[in-house]
């Protein structure tokens, strides 16, 4: 299997990496079996379609409500966090987010960071930034630890090492961890990881975590996890820094309840994860443990662009369960690395254009058959196929065309030739007379159908028009008009 170095890749090379991934039968088998496993697990958690749909309605309503009031909720969250002694930082770009964290580390004289799982930290490439400045950053989620050890990036937002077999991991541990022999026993591999990381939890100066839901009314950060590394990262080090996209806030604790039910059921097919970890502020007087200082970094990084447009705003409803990728026929074939984005799969295809601009990500919105499996399982009902089509439209739009909310990279896929083809096409199909001519020519000269038909004949025999069209047959039958 190819171990692709994943630093500094870009979605602009999507097509090359797709070819590599498709040629890798082992990789495809890994993803196929992992996807089937996760699909079955999810299905087992939603046996009652009536309850499922009602809960999805509620989840969608919660997220839509939060987004409708987003600026007010962020201020409310900030006020309540500050009242609990949490320092709140705002970052517009990945660079700003990294600099904020580096400054906190520098001021505290901290050199050792232990990380719980945080996709936002992946998004801003925090590890790379801190390592380059002499701050050691260690991932503690088993999957994240494995990909970090391999010098890769996560291929799935919930299961970062889903592309690896236990044999891959056995070899990796044997090579990289002193005294770890080769074993394919998963319990033994996990024990090895645990032992290495335990020591590091104890020594770390700073723990960094993500956030699943931020509760504005109480100033609470709600973290969802199975391993306990999230709890250790937010408990043992002296400083806890949480990172989240600005969209993750909800109004009340009650509003988070349906999301807390939908997230684990959709993500890993669990009724609940091992831990729901609700953190309200740093160590208080009288508390015996917990971090003494606590920070929250709020990241924009293109989210306000998605927010500006009433349709694209739905992108921000996402609670990062990964069900869309687990059910995506494209993701199952190419795997997470091919996308070259922090967030792969359908959610990545609709989110990345806002984070990175359409110039680099223009191949992502078209890489979908629009089958709708993603939207069918989305716990908060994001209409992913509609948003993909909208992004295709924006990529096709003339770069300078005046629109109310231009997207970064608008017109990245615009070509005069392409536009003329569609003009020509619609000129034929909107005119019965011209279409009659096309029909006549296509059926008369059917033998001239080319043997190579763009992408179609790479995997299929050529198409050839019928000798007589349905219109001809209807006319011959004397079908009423």
């Amino acid at each position, binding site marked *: 299997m190819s171990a692709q170095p994943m630093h500094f890749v870009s979605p602009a090379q999507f097509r090359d990496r797709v070819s590599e991934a498709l040629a890798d039968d082992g990789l495809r088998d890994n993803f196929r079996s992992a996807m089937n496993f996760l699909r079955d697990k999810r299905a087992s958690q939603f046996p009652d379609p009536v309850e499922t749909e009602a809960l999805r309605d509620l989840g969608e309503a919660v997220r839509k409500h939060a987004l409708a009031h987003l600026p007010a909720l962020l201020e409310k969250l900030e006020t309540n966090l500050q009242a609990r002694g949490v320092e709140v930082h705002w970052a517009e770009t990945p660079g700003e987010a990294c600099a904020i964290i580096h400054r906190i580390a520098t001021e505290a004289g901290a050199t050792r960071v232990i990380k719980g799982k945080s996709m936002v930290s992946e998004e801003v490439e925090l590890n790379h930034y801190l390592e380059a400045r002499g701050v050691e950053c260690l991932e503690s989620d088993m999957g994240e630890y494995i990909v970090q050890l391999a010098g890769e990036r996560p291929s799935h937002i919930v299961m970062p090492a889903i592309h690896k077999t236990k044999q891959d991991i056995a070899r990796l541990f044997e090579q990289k961890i002193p005294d770890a022999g080769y074993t394919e026993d998963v319990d033994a591999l996990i024990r090895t990881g645990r032992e290495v990381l335990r020591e590091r939890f104890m020594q770390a100066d700073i723990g960094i975590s993500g956030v699943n839901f931020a509760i504005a009314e109480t100033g609470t950060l709600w973290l969802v996890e199975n391993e306990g590394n999230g709890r250790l990262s937010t408990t043992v080090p002296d400083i806890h820094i949480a990172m989240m996209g600005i969209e993750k806030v909800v109004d009340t604790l009650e509003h988070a309840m349906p999301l807390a039910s939908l997230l684990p059921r959709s993500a890993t097919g669990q009724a609940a994860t091992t831990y729901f970890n609700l953190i309200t502020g740093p160590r208080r007087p009288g508390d015996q443990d917990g971090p003494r200082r606590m920070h929250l970094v709020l990241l924009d990084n293109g989210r306000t662009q998605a927010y500006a447009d009433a349709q694209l705003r739905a992108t921000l409803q996402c609670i990062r369960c990964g069900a869309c990728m687990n059910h995506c*026929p494209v993701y199952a074939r190419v795997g997470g690395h091919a996308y070259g984005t922090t967030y792969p799969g359908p959610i990545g295809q609709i989110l990345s254009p806002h984070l990175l601009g359409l110039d680099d990500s223009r191949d992502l919105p*078209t890489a979908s058959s*629009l*089958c709708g499996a993603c939207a069918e399982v989305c716990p908060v009902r994001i209409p992913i196929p509609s948003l993909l089509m909208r992004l295709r439209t924006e990529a096709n739009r003339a770069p300078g065309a005046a629109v109310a909310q231009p997207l970064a990279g608008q017109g990245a896929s615009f070509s005069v030739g392409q536009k003329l083809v569609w003009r020509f096409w619609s000129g034929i199909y909107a005119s019965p007379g011209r279409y009659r001519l096309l029909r006549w020519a296509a059926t008369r000269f059917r033998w001239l159908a080319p043997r190579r038909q763009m992408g179609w004949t790479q995997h299929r025999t050529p198409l050839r028009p019928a000798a007589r069209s349905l219109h001809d047959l209807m006319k011959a039958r004397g079908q009423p008009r």
Partner: protein
Amino acid sequence: MHADRPPRPDQVYLFGTCLIDLFVPQAGVDAVRLLEREGLTVHFPRAQTCCGQPAFTSGNPDEARRVAAAQIALFDQPWPIVVPSGSCAGMMRHHWPTLFDDDPKMQARARDVAGRVYELAGFLVDVLHVDYSAASAEPVTVGLHTSCSARREMGTRAHGVQLLSALPGVTLDTHANESECCGFGGVFSLKHADISGAIVHDKVASLSAVCERFVTADCGCMLNISHAAEHQGRALRGEHLATFLLRRLEGQA
């Protein structure tokens, strides 16, 4: 909202779709004959061309709107519009109205038309309550591939299953990953040919594992799967649901 079970009409429109028109016309004729068999008069407006979906899904809504507007003008009688394709029916019912968000008058017409659009299998079951128990009893095993639009936009997978299961002699075999896309996706199959090819490769394999003939109510999927199977030298061939139903009703295998 659309009434899925209106009273039985005596006249309907057929929207034949551009793929059927040029590539699988017999499926259109067979759909007409299935409807006529139930005593309906089937109107086929001669000026019809395409629902506009290729332009719509590829991010060219202006061109889709132009083509859709030309179709919407053709269905002025209040009859149901039967479409032998889940994806074209989905486009017409769900997306036509959204194309005219800036034109309330046209949007009202689009809504009126969209509300009368039926996918063929759904229409046969829900509106006509067809009884196919007298069809040929000769044993045959077939697979069923339901298009993603039929499954998710029109909700007519169950109707396909019901029609085939009610036929005497027909054994319906479910293939692995039955609910998964065949990889067609219109322009997707051209723009991302390799991914599309990988998906249809797996679909051909899973269908071939249970049958040599499969039935589908969407010609896009049918051409995709059949031509991929032919390319691979596999025996698997597809048939439009209308054609399969009609042949069984006429006493053939």
